[in-house]
């Protein structure tokens, strides 16, 4: 027990954030979205980001996931400073390391569930057989193997969100980011989605970072941090 604890302690955090600032310039006024955030996230954690609307949760998540850049500070993910990568390197990095789940309108409406999940794999060199296997596995993991030929509009909101999770998983990234993934779902569907995210961190060893303002959703996480006006409050 002690040895394992030591080993875990010795392992580098997957995400290391230091003195992160994000300031938006709106005419004369500066809006500080992130005000000097420092945060470590351990591998396999299911971290929930909570806080009132406008507190900077999405901004922080976007920077960690490499779709936004901070005004200053650093953000290392698996030892790589994502703030230092250029556009094209970042795109490639995201494809391999990050899976995204958004609140709504996640899926491409003209593609079936299967094709939506396959989308990130089109950028890889996998053979079509390997692709099929990975898509199938991801869909099974979210319990939608039987819905693979359905279009998004033929799925319920919860099912759509699960397809989005499958798509986030399919490239086997170490980081899954989700911005209020249950915000538009009924409590039952929300529960399904949260259970899947939880098991991803528990049994698949994924690091999950989820933004939510629902304490019940946050309860599924292994740790919760609160943002208040761009600062961590506890």
């Amino acid at each position, binding site marked *: 027990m002690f040895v394992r604890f030591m080993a875990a302690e010795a392992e580098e955090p997957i995400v290391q954030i230091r003195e992160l600032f994000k300031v938006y310039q709106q005419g004369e006024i500066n809006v500080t979205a992130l005000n000097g955030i420092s945060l470590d996230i351990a591998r396999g954690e299911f971290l929930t980001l909570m806080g009132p609307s406008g507190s900077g949760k999405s901004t922080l998540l*976007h920077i960690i*996931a490499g*779709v*936004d850049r901070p005004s200053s500070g650093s953000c290392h993910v698996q030892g790589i400073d994502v703030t230092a990568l250029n*556009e*094209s390197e970042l*795109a*490639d990095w*995201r*494809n*391999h390391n990050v899976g*995204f789940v*958004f*609140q*709504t*309108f*996640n899926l*491409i*409406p*003209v*593609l079936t569930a299967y*094709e939506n999940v*396959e*989308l*990130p794999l*089109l*950028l890889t060199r996998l053979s079509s057989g390997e692709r099929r296997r990975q898509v199938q596995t991801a869909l099974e993991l979210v319990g939608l193997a039987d819905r693979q030929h359905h279009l998004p509009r033929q799925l319920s909101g919860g099912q759509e969100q699960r397809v989005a999770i499958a*798509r986030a998983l399919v*490239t086997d990234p170490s980081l899954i980011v989700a911005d209020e993934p249950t915000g538009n779902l009924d409590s039952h569907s929300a529960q399904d989605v949260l259970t899947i995210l939880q098991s991803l961190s528990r049994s698949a060893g994924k690091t999950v970072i989820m933004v939510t303002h629902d304490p019940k959703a946050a309860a599924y996480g292994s740790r919760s941090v609160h943002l208040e006006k761009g600062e961590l409050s506890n």
Partner: protein
Amino acid sequence: MTLTGFIAKNALRNKRRLVLSVTSVAVSLFLLVALQVALRELTNPINDEGSSLRIIVRNKVSLAQPLPARQLQVLERIPGIAAITPFTFYGGLYKGDEKFTSFAQFAVDPARTLPLITDAKVPREQLEAWLADRTSCIVGKMTAERYGLKIGDRMQFTSQLYPADLEFKIVGIYEGTADDRNVFFHHKYLDESLGNPGTVGTWWVRAASIEEAPLVTARINQAFANSSAEVRAESERAFVLGFVSMWGNIQNLISGISVVVVFALLLVTVSTMSMAIRERFRELAILKAIGFRRRELFAFILAESFGLALLGGVLGVGGAYFLCNSLDIQKLSNGLFLLFEVTPRMVGFGFSVAALLGVLAAAAPMITVARTSVVEGLKTLD
């Protein structure tokens, strides 16, 4: 699914819009090619090679004013002239035609005319028969076929210019000239019917060489300067252009319309593409988020826009090609239009416009996509 499949699915997502925009591209390109065909039809006689050797000499005052027949002696002494014949437009209405006869009849001196129509293929014995018989004529193959005429038949005309209704016996049928429609007959026959007025409509001259043609033209003009019948000599090319000077305006008009068509087409495709992409802004942001690079998104947009324009091109240019080359325009237009064909160059032009359209229509959405970050893209519709 392949990337191509993905592009196709995106393009097909709004079928009505796709059909409408492809149709508008197709119709416009059809129009564009049809205009090119018409333009070629109008300019074609001018580009005939033999016509650069031939010179038409007409009265300086106007084409309707005759020239004195005695000018021939002066003309014959001008250096650089290989052949010369009187050349008078008879303006006959062919018996049976209501208002308009689609071929011209020219009174000429047959013996002198032969060197001027070297491109015409006529059997030797037919030529001899023509030279021998004062009331005979030779007819272009197209006219002969159109009216079902053969050697030995007679043609009756009422002139709309001269008080002389003539009847000719067909002794020869020629082909191989730029316009195998005309009738050539003896000037003497016309002169006699008019009581030998000693005038001709124009002179038809052949220069000895293409290099000398402009000099010959100048010499002729000079020879009759300050005479009672001043002339204007010009190459057949220039003459045809002047004869139908309004065609010059039509050319400008056609070019103008073509430009407008292309411009309208551009607006339609650009707005269609912009609309198609704007609708998908959030999706493009999601694609970016999951690792698609800018250049891949560019490729999607370009492929879709290009595909749309090219499909329109195939339908429009192909339609024009099919229509022009399968319909008998000559018959439909009463022989007014001869060629009416879509040349490979026009096909190339049509497709170039389509390709250019595809690229230009993609440009604006590409710029917007490049400028928009994932985060901004995700905010739309949220």
